[in-house]
């Protein structure tokens, strides 16, 4: 028998949602448990649970209080969260093409300077990483990736930008991310991808799932422009490495 896992904290998010908190910090082991509980609830649905939202450190469980009350669901979630982590059926591995630096990644030079190395070294390190989608949130398709090497950990910008481009690949704190829609960001912009993690009228509308593995590959600006046209027309562009 595996050692018993510590119980998560059961926190009320109003009368119709429970936050199942495994950690207060960004913590890989906690995120694995979040995703494991999410898989358990997908495999063996609990009556009354309407939707689950994984984040780095907690699983938000929406439910209908007409069908199940807080105490009953809380107890059930604590028990489920301490079950041995179920094996993942099949982890998808994506490779996402990125054009780094220049107009596509306006912070690459500054990041290199701050970390006392060259832009090429930053790109080489970012491309060498094996990442996992820890959560998707904030705006549609914004995918937060765990697994950034320590050398690239950097505090967020003091002054967040109000508008950053669609497809931005950036780093912030201990994370890296794939941003789908143009929008505000306080992270450091390394490059852009043509991949749309969210695109209406495409099947699938959302490309990445929490738990998917991701690597990056460097492409030149011309390739990016071609891929961007293909992606606009509905192509996925990202490569599924273990299809």
């Amino acid at each position, binding site marked *: 028998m595996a050692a018993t896992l510590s119980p998560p904290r059961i926190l009320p998010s*109003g009368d119709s949602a429970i936050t199942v908190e495994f950690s*207060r*910090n960004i913590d890989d082991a906690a995120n694995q448990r979040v995703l494991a509980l999410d898989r358990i609830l997908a495999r063996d649905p609990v009556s009354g649970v309407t939707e689950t939202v994984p984040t780095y450190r907690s699983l938000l469980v*929406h439910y209908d209080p*007409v069908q199940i*009350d*807080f105490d009953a669901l809380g107890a059930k979630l604590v028990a489920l969260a301490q079950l041995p982590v179920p094996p993942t059926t099949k982890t998808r591995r994506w490779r996402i093409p990125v054009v780094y630096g220049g107009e596509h990644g306006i912070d690459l030079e500054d990041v290199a300077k701050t970390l006392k190395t060259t832009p090429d070294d930053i790109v080489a390190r970012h491309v060498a990483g094996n990442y996992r989608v820890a959560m998707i*949130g*904030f705006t549609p398709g914004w995918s937060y990736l765990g697994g950034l090497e320590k050398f690239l950990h950097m505090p967020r910008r003091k002054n967040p930008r109000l508008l950053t481009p669609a497809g931005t690949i950036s780093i912030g704190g201990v994370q890296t991310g794939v941003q789908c829609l143009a929008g505000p960001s306080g992270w450091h912009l390394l490059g852009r991808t043509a991949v749309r993690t969210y695109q209406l009228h495409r099947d699938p509308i959302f490309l990445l799932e929490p738990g998917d593995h991701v690597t990056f590959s460097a492409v030149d600006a011309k390739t990016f422009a071609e891929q961007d046209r293909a992606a606009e027309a509905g192509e996925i562009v990202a490569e599924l490495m273990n299809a």
Partner: protein
Amino acid sequence: MSKLVISAIGPASSVQDGGRHGAQRYGLTPSGAVDQLALAAANCLVGNELFAAAIEIGPFGAAFTAREGAVRVALAGAPRNADISGRTVASDTSMTLADGETLTLGFARGGSFSYLAIEGGIAGELMFGSLAVNARAGLGSPYPRPLQAADELQTAGASGASERRIDLPAVPEGPIRVVMGPQDDEFGEAATKLFLDSEWKISATSDRMGYRLEGPVIKHLHGHNIVSDGTVNGSIQVPGNGAPIVLMPDRGTSGGYPKIATVMTADLGRFAQIPAGRGFRFRAVSMAEAQAEARKFAQLLRTLPGRVKAIENFDLNIEALQDANVAGAAVSAVDAATWQIPSADALAQD
């Protein structure tokens, strides 16, 4: 097919419905009407599904014109002056616009949002089962943005059914009830007391993403950054400046500010209707109380169609009599056993 043409409309007006559920795990927020009870009331007056798409009308005035045939609509939510080509019409009733007629609505009085449901629903392309507008994500149909003058909504056309009214229970008064948490432990006793004991106002810079509150500064114990976690409608997050923001249906699905409390489900619509600048308070309730109220609210929504009544002449008389504060005597006017409208003399005795 008939159509309803938007002749004039203010900001913060869009097509909304019960919301787009099931994709928050991909960062897609549910959107949907901020006052679900008013949406459902308008819909059941014209025989639609309770959470079908309707026009959510912001605090300013609006005008709608029927074209290519008659259009039957119903109005609910914030009270406002309403007329059809000069003929006064009431909120919480259905009404039919003949081809070419215009329904003109004034500013919201004592609320913020009204709902105009269209008999037969609004023709559009469902995305994740919803027509609700989420402008940031490019979602919503027939227009993925707030409504503008000259927009046209296609509809099945008026059935010719007789008009209806709906009796809604009085909106509860008193503080907006909240359940503390999930991060109330990020605030000390003094900050929690200040939050619960103070009068708050909704800032004019509020929108469907969040209502910003004006009042005292709520200080955090350990700073304002937490690791992002999930949000719900009614989450009350406190950013670095100490001014709480109540998250509304177009919120981000996750957020990195501590959430001191959450507005309970049954009070979400009532909260959404508080006009900017009007003072209100919060009151903490137990989980048991909030869930009991949520169940009652769900029951109210389920039984709404039973509250819809035909509009008859004697009903109108009763309304007039109630206004004159002689409702006690008027009750017998609709008693099927007597089936007679008492004379004015009889009523005057009460």
